[in-house]
């Protein structure tokens, strides 16, 4: 089961109602054999746009992020269910991504080119490659002098 992030905008409503809505949403996941890893509340915030859902105009919404594991085939089903839910204004499902390990390498990158590891590697690679089109005179050709202009 892949990990998904279910981002939801729920309509403005009092807390007990919000709780029942969240419970309903969670049970829909449990019913389809899913796992909830985490529920995150991003707050009650004004929406970027005036949004219409289920015949009502919304200007503010409760932002929630569910981190869930669910079978791939259940995702469409869940989306369909949440689309019918009148309390859900907008919903999106994203595949959760591993946090990237971006260590800061600025110090190394600011070194002069000759000290940089990747430049050194490039120089080494260049040394192994021979140009086929330049003929180099071999001194063991039997002549005791270099026959061309130096």
């Amino acid at each position: 089961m892949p990990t998904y992030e279910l981002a939801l905008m729920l309509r403005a409503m009092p807390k007990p109602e919000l709780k029942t809505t969240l419970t309903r949403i969670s049970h829909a996941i449990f019913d389809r054999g899913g796992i909830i890893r985490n529920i995150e509340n991003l707050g009650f915030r004004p929406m970027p746009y005036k949004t219409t859902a289920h015949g009502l105009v919304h200007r503010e919404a409760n932002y929630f992020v569910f981190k869930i594991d669910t079978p791939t085939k259940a995702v469409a089903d869940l989306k369909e269910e949440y689309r019918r839910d009148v309390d859900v204004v907008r919903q999106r499902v994203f595949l959760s991504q591993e946090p990237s390990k971006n260590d800061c390498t600025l110090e190394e990158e600011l070194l002069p080119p000759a000290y940089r590891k990747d430049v050194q590697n490039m120089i080494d690679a260049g040394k192994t490659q021979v140009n086929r089109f330049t003929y180099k005179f071999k001194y063991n050709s039997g002549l005791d002098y270099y026959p061309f202009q130096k």
Partner: protein
Amino acid sequence: MLSLSSLLKRTLPLVIQSAEAHRKPRWLPVAKSKIYRIPKRPVISEEERLELLRLHNNYKTQMRSIKRFYHEEMIKEKSSRESASSEMSQRIEAEEWARCVELNEKWNAQVALDRQERRKLEMAEQDEYALKRMERADVLQKERIAKASEEIRRQKELSPTFITPETLEAAIDHAIANPTDYNFAIDLKGNRYEGRDVQITYAKENKAAKSASA
């Protein structure tokens, strides 16, 4: 200049008439004045016709007899030659054939030997290649299994933190009570100010340094 004798001894005529100069092109139709002209048939007298017929017949008969004579002679000669040398030629041919077969068999034996050796080498090479591939596949498979088991172990460690139907209510309460905010500001010293509604208060020494510099 030109002597009379050289003029008289000339091989080519002085004036050459060419028929083409007067001829009309092929694509022009028959002239109007010649449309109904019927060319006159050559008239040959009866005597002359009979004479020509006789000469012609004579010529044909004689030629036929000569041809037949040479043809029969050729056939006779051929048959006599074949009967004379048939035994001899057959024997020579058989000997040649036997020699060829022997040589061919020798060559075949040599090629078979070479092929056997080559096949042995090829088989060894193939075996080595297959073994190498299998070993590599084994290593990859082992790596994959190790990676998967590591992932499973990690998830098992995490599993107590998962939300179950029993802990759902508490988790929802917790989430509603504690909204998270990933926004933050950062100053020149690298200090992070988490949250979007946080009031930033600078340290006093900072302010003093600023005023001093200004």
